[in-house]
C-alpha cells in the first residue's frame, strides 16, 4: 500500500535504517568503554602479576586463592559489607520520617523541603566529606564546645565514628529521594480505612504503609549500600587511612602499591561484584516476599 508515495516495505526499511542510526553511537560507546573494560578486568583477574607490575598473560587461579587465604582481604570484605549495612540502616531510619513529613506538607512548603533535600544531593561529595574534617578537627567547633563545657578535648577524627558520620551524611539524600517518590504514590486514605477497621496506627504502619512503600525502600537501600561498600574517599579522609575498606585496597593495588598488582585487584573487583549481585538479589527477594 502506498502512503504518500512510500510503500509499506519502504517505510519499514527506512525505519530500520533510522533505528540503526539512532542506536549506533550509544551502543558503540557503551560496548567499547563499559562492557569491554569489564571483560578486561575479568581477564586480568586470571593473569599473573609480573615482578615490575607488568601483566603476564598466563592463566592462574592464584589471585583468587590469595583473596580467600589472607586475613587482610577477607576482613576488608567483611568490614566494608558491615559498614555498608550499618550506613544503609541508619540512612533508612533517618530518611523515612523525613520523606514522610515532606510528602504530607502543603505544596509550597513541600517544594521548599524537597529543594533543601536536593541541594546536598547535587553538592560535591569531596566538599561534603571535607566539611566534617573541619567540624571534627582537634580545634574545631565540636571540640571547642566540649572544652567550653569543661571536658577534655576528644580525638573525634580520624576515627571509625567519623567515617560512619561521613558516610551517612554523604548518602542520606540518595535514600530520601526514592522514599519521597514512593510515599508520594502512597494513598494515605488507606491509613484512615485501617483505623476505621480498628487497626492501631502502629499496626497500620507496619502492615500497610511499609509494605506499600517497599519499592522505595529497596531502591534507596541499593543506592546507599553499593557506593558505601565500594567507597575509599571517606575512609581515607575521615578515617586517616588507618582501617582498610575494600575501596582502599582496590585503589592501592591499582594506583599506589609498588609495584601495582592489577591481577589481584581485578580478582578483588570481580568478587566484589559477585558478592554485591548476590546481596542485592537476596534483598529484592526479601522485600518482594514482604509485599505479598
Amino acid at each position, binding site marked *: 500500500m502506498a502512503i504518500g508515495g512510500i510503500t509499506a516495505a519502504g517505510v519499514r526499511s527506512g525505519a530500520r535504517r533510522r*533505528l540503526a*542510526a*539512532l*542506536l549506533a*553511537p*550509544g551502543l558503540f*560507546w*557503551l*560496548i567499547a*568503554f*563499559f562492557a569491554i*573494560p569489564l571483560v*578486561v*578486568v575479568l581477564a586480568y583477574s586470571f593473569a599473573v602479576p609480573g615482578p615490575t607490575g607488568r601483566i603476564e598473560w598466563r592463566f592462574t587461579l592464584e589471585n583468587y586463592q590469595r583473596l580467600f587465604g589472607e586475613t587482610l582481604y577477607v576482613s576488608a570484605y567483611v568490614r566494608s559489607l558491615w559498614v555498608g549495612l550499618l550506613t544503609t540502616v541508619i540512612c533508612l531510619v*533517618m*530518611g523515612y*520520617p*523525613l520523606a514522610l*513529613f515532606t510528602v*504530607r506538607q502543603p505544596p509550597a512548603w513541600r517544594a521548599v523541603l524537597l529543594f*533543601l533535600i*536536593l*541541594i546536598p544531593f*547535587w*553538592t*560535591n*561529595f569531596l*566538599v561534603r566529606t*571535607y*566539611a566534617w*574534617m*573541619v*567540624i571534627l*578537627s582537634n*580545634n*574545631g567547633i565540636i571540640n*571547642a564546645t566540649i572544652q567550653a563545657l569543661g571536658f577534655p578535648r576528644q580525638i573525634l577524627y580520624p576515627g571509625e565514628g567519623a567515617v560512619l558520620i561521613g558516610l551517612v*551524611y554523604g548518602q*542520606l*539524600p540518595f535514600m530520601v529521594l526514592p522514599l519521597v517518590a514512593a510515599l508520594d504514590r502512597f494513598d*494515605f486514605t488507606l*491509613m484512615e480505612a485501617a483505623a476505621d477497621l480498628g487497626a*492501631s*496506627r502502629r499496626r497500620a504502619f507496619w502492615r500497610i*504503609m511499609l509494605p506499600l512503600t517497599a519499592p522505595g525502600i529497596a531502591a534507596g537501600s541499593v543506592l546507599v549500600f*553499593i*557506593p558505601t561498600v*565500594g*567507597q*575509599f*574517599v571517606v575512609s581515607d579522609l575521615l578515617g586517616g587511612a588507618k582501617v582498610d575498606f575494600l575501596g582502599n585496597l*582496590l*585503589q592501592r593495588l*591499582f*594506583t599506589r602499591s609498588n609495584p601495582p598488582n592489577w591481577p589481584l585487584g*581485578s580478582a578483588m*573487583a570481580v568478587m*566484589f*561484584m559477585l558478592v*554485591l549481585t548476590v546481596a542485592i538479589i537476596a534483598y529484592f527477594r526479601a522485600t518482594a516476599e514482604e509485599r505479598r
Partner: protein
Amino acid sequence: MARRAPEAGGLLLRLHTGATLLFLYAPIVVLVVFSFTSDSFGVRWTGFTLRWYQRLFSDERLIGATLNTLLVATVATLIATVIGTMLAFAMERYRFRGRTGLEALLYVPIVIPEIVMALALLGFFALAFGLIDAWFGVRPVMGLATVIIAHVAFTVSFVVVVVRTSLKNFDVRLEEAAADLGADAWQTFRRITLPLIMPGIIGGALLGFTLSLDDFIITFFTTGPGTSLLPVEVYGQVKRAITPKINALSTLMLVASITLVFLSQFIQWRGRRSS
C-alpha cells in the same frame, strides 16, 4: 514517629525533620563561615577576611584545573546528551531484538560501584594503548581525552533515563497531527517533538554536567600525570591538611551546585507548565 504518620506531621516528626535538616546543613554553613575566618587553620572564628578568596584567585594551578574540569564536563555532556537522546528515542519508539539486553546495558552503569568502573577503564586504556603501541608504534597517554571518554560512558545512562521520562509523557497524537498536515518526519521532529521534549533533554544534560563536574573516582583513575583536574587537586590538598583556602574553594563549588539545582528545577517547572 510512625504512629503519628497519618497527620500532616506530629510533634516528633517535626522535631526529627528539623534535626535532620540541621544535620544536613550545619556542615555546609560551617564551611561557608570558615571560608571568611582569619584563622590560618580554618577551623575557628577569629575575625573576618577575604584573604583566602584572593589567594584562591591567584592560584594558577587551581584555576587551570578548574578550566580543565569545565572543559571535560562540557564536552562530555555534549556527547552524552546527543547519543543519550538518540538512545532514548530508539528505546521508546521502536521494538527491536536485543532491546532487553540494551536495557540492562544501560542500567548497569548506574548501579555499578564507581570504583569498579574506574579501574576497569584504567585497565582497558592501559591494554588498548599497549596494543596501539605494538601495532602502530605510537603510545597514547592518559589525559583529558581519556577522562572525557570515561565521563561520557558513565553519564550517558543518566541522560537516557531523564529523556525517556519526557518521551513517555509525550502525546504522540501531536506527531500524527503534524504528519496529517503534511509535515515530513524530519519537520515533525524538528518543529514538534524536539521543542516539546527539550526540558527533558536539558534536564538530562544538567544532571550529566553535574555528575561529570563532581566526579572524583573515575576522574582520578582515568587522568594522566600531566593533567590537573579540580576534584583530583582538591583531594590531594584535603588529604594533606585543612586550610581556609580549601574552605573558600568549597564555598564556591557549593554556590555552583546550588545554581545548577535552581536551574534544573526551574527548567522542570517550566516544562511541566507548558505541557
